């Protein structure tokens, strides 16, 4: 049980710090409201009004999806490459099967124009 005491202490400390900061800030800080402060925070850019029914391009999302697919592929390729000689023929066949499967999805995206930007 004593193993968890430091974690508990740290959690209490963290919570107390958060509460203290907020309370201290709200008591001691000056309050000068203006229009910009009341708006939603969007990385410092003026927030754009969202109009219902307008479509905006999401081209980048296709690229992002493809990136995830190849990212996952790399995760499996690295350990295989490190132990390539020890995994032998079985590992090679499995990896070729895996890459071929991913390639099928890639061929679909390519043929359907998923890689064309315009």
């Amino acid at each position: 049980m004593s193993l968890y005491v430091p974690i508990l202490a740290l959690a209490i400390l963290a919570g107390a710090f958060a509460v203290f900061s907020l309370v201290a800030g709200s008591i001691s800080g000056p309050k000068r409201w203006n229009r910009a402060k009341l708006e939603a925070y969007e990385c410092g850019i003026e927030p754009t009004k969202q109009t219902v029914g307008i479509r905006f391009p999401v081209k980048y999302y296709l690229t992002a999806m493809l990136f995830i697919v190849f990212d996952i592929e790399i995760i499996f390729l690295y350990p295989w490459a490190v132990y390539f000689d020890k995994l032998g023929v079985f590992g090679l066949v499995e990896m070729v099967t895996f890459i071929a499967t991913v390639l099928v999805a890639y061929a679909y995206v390519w043929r359907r124009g998923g890689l064309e930007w315009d």
Partner: protein
Amino acid sequence: MSVTVAATASTIAAPHFEWSLLSPMLLVFGAALAGVLIEAFAPRDLRRPMHVALTLGSLAGAFVLTVVLAAKSSIFAAGKPGVVAAIGTVGVDRPTLFIQATILILAFVSVLLIAESSHEVSSFTPQAAAVPGSAEEREGLLAGLSHTEVYPLTLFAVGGMLLFPAANDLLTMFIALEVLSLPLYLLCGLARRRRLLSQEAAMKYFLLGAFSSAIFLFGIAMLYGYAGSVRLSAIATAAQSGLASSTLLYAGIALLGVGLLFKVGAVPFQAWKPDVYQGSPTPITALMASCTLVSAFGALLRVFYVAFGQLTWDWRPAMWAVAIVTMMVGSIIAITQTDVKRLLAYSSIAQAGYILTGVIAANAAGLSGSLFYLAAYGFATIGAFAIVTLVRDRAGEAAHMSGWAGLGKRSPLVAGVFALFLIAFAGIPLTSGFNGKFAVFRAAIQGGALPLVIIGVISSAILAFPYVRVIVLMFFSEPAAEGPVVVRPSAYTGLAVAIGAAATVVLGIIPEPLLSLASHAASQLFVR
């Protein structure tokens, strides 16, 4: 530790895969990949015929392979219930092969509905990416486009459904759950008519399905914490020894049960079912109502019979409550429905309750009753949804019940076959539904669940009311002047209806062959 061991060894021993035991699933997944390649490289007008041939051919081939496996004596040598394949992750035993064969036949019939293409009846949107009601959508309609991706997606889903009840450890089961669910979320949103409703259905199904998957995964984590393994048999062994904290075990059972009961559509996890069944393209609804239900019950049966088989007394009370609420809520709310697809959805919820009484029996009779019920209900429900695709007005399918008034006078054959399916759902003798109910209720009585059976019979009586009302509406009321008409189906839908009706009648009059097959399949329960 294991890493250093592997590094010092000169070679790592390759695991042994029994490819022939996995062949039905491999064939379906391979065909799905080939379908994606067709989608990528075949010219547009050749795609549909190629897909239809490939999809139907692979499902039929996988069925043959399953039958060959079931006939193979080496799997069941020395009185074993089956074998464990693929480094212990897949169980190949009689109940699983029965479930997989059922799924493959039902998927074949569903694909017949999906393949219906005559311009009047096709159920899928020409361009899923176009905003409903926009110029792009109209353009796609006029160009006669269609989404042939439907076929590979269906094959991926069916592949997942085959693996789901066969999975012998919880991680494989989770992957199978995702493989079967993700294509279905997409397929739900592809309806040709009333597209906003369809997209809403897909969204709801996706969000609720994601929640249930997360709960399922949480349950896996609990059980892994309890047993130190995700293997079903290891969990059973750990539960038997009872050394670890049982809190983890009970939490795991509850969470895993919620995930599985969601897929089955049992109350209180049924909220998605009416909306999704109503909004989805009707062939996809037929696929979900038959194959997904069979697959989910297969997984539920395996988990509760193998992993929690020693704990029957612990999970039974909760399952009793779920079964009672499911049967009553499903049948009572069905009375108020005015939409045919929603009526069939609530009926499906009530039927899930009846099958749960077979699960609760927790013996070989319960398993065989459930297997028979699933097969019988699957055929009838596909047939019923196939009829729904045929009754159309200018806006598409005439789902509202008022349009069905007097249908029996204009198209006596179609109305008669629909009445047959409704009678089967109600469990009237000489239909497959009666024999299914009889099988599960008898097993439940043997298992000591007489009150449950009494509630089941009351629920069936309540559920008969909305069915009889539809039959009266079809045959004894005057047709509306501008009412919907029954379109002439192509051979695909006609065949699907014929198979559904034939199975309902044959399993009603001579159920003995399938009943004995089911009880043979269930005689030794699942492999551990």
